[in-house]
């Protein structure tokens, strides 16, 4: 049995495609058998919704009268630092950017109630945002100051462009020390009192296509409530990690760089979030459709929480000191049970990634496909995979 993306798209247009979420497909294959499920089901939809720090957006504001050259100047959006290294009317804001007057961790743990992620959420929600800018003035761009409200509807372009999203598996964070830790993985209580994880497990896009056989440059996806595209591998993309027999990575592995028109997204799926003592960031909703082109690809989508192992990492020493030690491996089934055993002791678990929202994304994408609103794309180039000489490097400091 082999299908092509063109054949599946034809069925989608006719409203005849059979779509299942990555949760549903497990039961379908169990009831009907693998080959039958692979023949009948055309697309499996996935989803994930969690904090993804390497996210941001760029805008073209339209030119002011008289003109001002933001490039090389300074600009803030609702007091949050924006990046002005591009042309006169282009601006970029990263999810982790903070207002200059935010106290950071001066009194620990800092609250980080507002940052770049929140600015992006407010723009997407259609709220006015204050742009304050200063420039040095040129003959062609004489203006030196700007203070105005802007609105997403008035911008020429507003584009979400995230250099690293949808991590294929991730660390489970614990704390062996005697003091409370405030990390990007949440609050970690002393002496292994809790463990935080951050993956949608069996619903997660890249865990359902572990070797990225269908996902590549040009893959059309659900992004922030609208339509987006995979444009490149994400930063820190590393397929060369230890894997289970089913091919699923046992460490953080592949990642995606994604892009999409911010104007058609919504704040339900782009949410500014604050990590106590760490910073502000953006929770992003992503869903990837996996075309069932063969029995092999179907087999990958049958992965369930009990088949996916995540590394338990100590964030009191190992992580900050960049030591490679992994304390244990634990399945997402165990993580979702509420606690797991680590060195004979029960450790309470909590998730930073919303599984209920991930499921909602998979269902939404399924509905779009059923309604013919969303067609699959053939990637124009695969992402680097095993054997493509990807080496994960560390920073070697030198003078």
């Amino acid at each position: 049995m082999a299908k092509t993306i063109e054949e599946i798209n034809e069925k989608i247009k006719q409203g005849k495609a059979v779509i299942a979420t990555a949760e549903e497909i497990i039961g379908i294959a169990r009831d009907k058998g693998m080959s039958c499920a692979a023949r009948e089901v055309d697309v499996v939809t996935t989803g994930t919704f969690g904090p993804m720090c390497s996210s941001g957006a760029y805008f073209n504001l339209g030119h002011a009268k008289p003109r001002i050259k933001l490039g090389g100047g300074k600009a803030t959006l609702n007091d949050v630092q924006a990046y002005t290294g591009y042309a006169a009317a282009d601006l970029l804001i990263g999810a982790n950017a903070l207002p200059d007057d935010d106290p950071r961790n001066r009194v620990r743990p800092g609250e980080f109630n507002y940052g770049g992620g929140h600015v992006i959420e407010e723009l997407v929600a259609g709220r006015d945002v204050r742009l304050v800018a200063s420039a040095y003035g040129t003959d062609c761009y004489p203006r030196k100051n700007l203070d105005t409200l802007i609105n997403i509807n008035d911008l020429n372009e507003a584009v979400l462009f995230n250099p690293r999203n949808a991590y294929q598996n991730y660390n489970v964070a614990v704390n062996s020390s005697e003091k409370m830790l405030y990390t990007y993985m949440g609050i970690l209580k002393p002496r292994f009192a809790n463990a935080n994880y951050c993956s949608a497990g069996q619903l997660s896009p890249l865990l359902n296509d572990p070797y990225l056989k269908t996902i590549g440059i040009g893959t059309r996806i659900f992004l922030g409530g609208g339509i987006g595209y995979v444009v490149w591998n994400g930063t820190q993309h590393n397929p060369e990690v230890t894997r289970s027999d089913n091919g699923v990575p046992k460490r953080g592995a592949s990642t995606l760089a994604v892009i999409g028109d911010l104007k058609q997204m919504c704040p339900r799926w782009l949410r500014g979030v604050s990590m106590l003592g760490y910073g502000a960031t953006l929770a992003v909703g992503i869903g990837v459709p996996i075309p069932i082109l063969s029995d092999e690809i179907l087999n990958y989508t049958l992965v369930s929480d009990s088949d996916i192992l995540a590394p338990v990492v100590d964030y009191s020493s190992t992580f900050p000191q960049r030591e490679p030690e992994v304390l244990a491996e634990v399945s997402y089934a165990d993580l979702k049970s509420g606690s797991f055993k680590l060195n004979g002791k029960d450790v309470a678990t909590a998730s930073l990634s919303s599984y209920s929202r991930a499921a909602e994304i998979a269902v939404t994408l399924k509905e779009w496909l059923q309604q013919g609103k969303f067609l699959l794309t053939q990637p124009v180039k695969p992402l680097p995979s095993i054997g493509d000489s990807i080496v994960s490097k560390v920073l070697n400091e030198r003078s």
Partner: protein
Amino acid sequence: MKISHKLVLHFPPRIVEQPVINNLIKNYDLSFNILKASIIPNQEGYVVLELSGEQDKYDAGIEYITSAGVKIESLSRSVLRNDERCTGCGACVSVCPSRSFIVEPQTRLVSFDNNRCVACGLCIKACPPRAMEFHF
């Protein structure tokens, strides 16, 4: 519905000698239990009391003493969830000492049981989308 709240009433000097509490009890059919008090004629005073009664009468009584010039503070605070902001991630689950957050095993939706909550506020700062709020 009968309700009961612990309140701190601050009396400014000009009303310390007026029968405010007597009026409150008589006209609004409320009962009270004074927990602590200090009222000195012509000076500021305060009363800490537990005030109980029917909701509508309680509300009317609070309106009366407020309009009489008494400043009210609540001794009890409660934590509420802003469901519009909550993303259902579950970061609150393991920080809560009273196990007020329960993850429904099938849907993975996170429910918040206000009755178990001791209003310590740990979840408020731990919540990434800042969906947990104090209410007085």
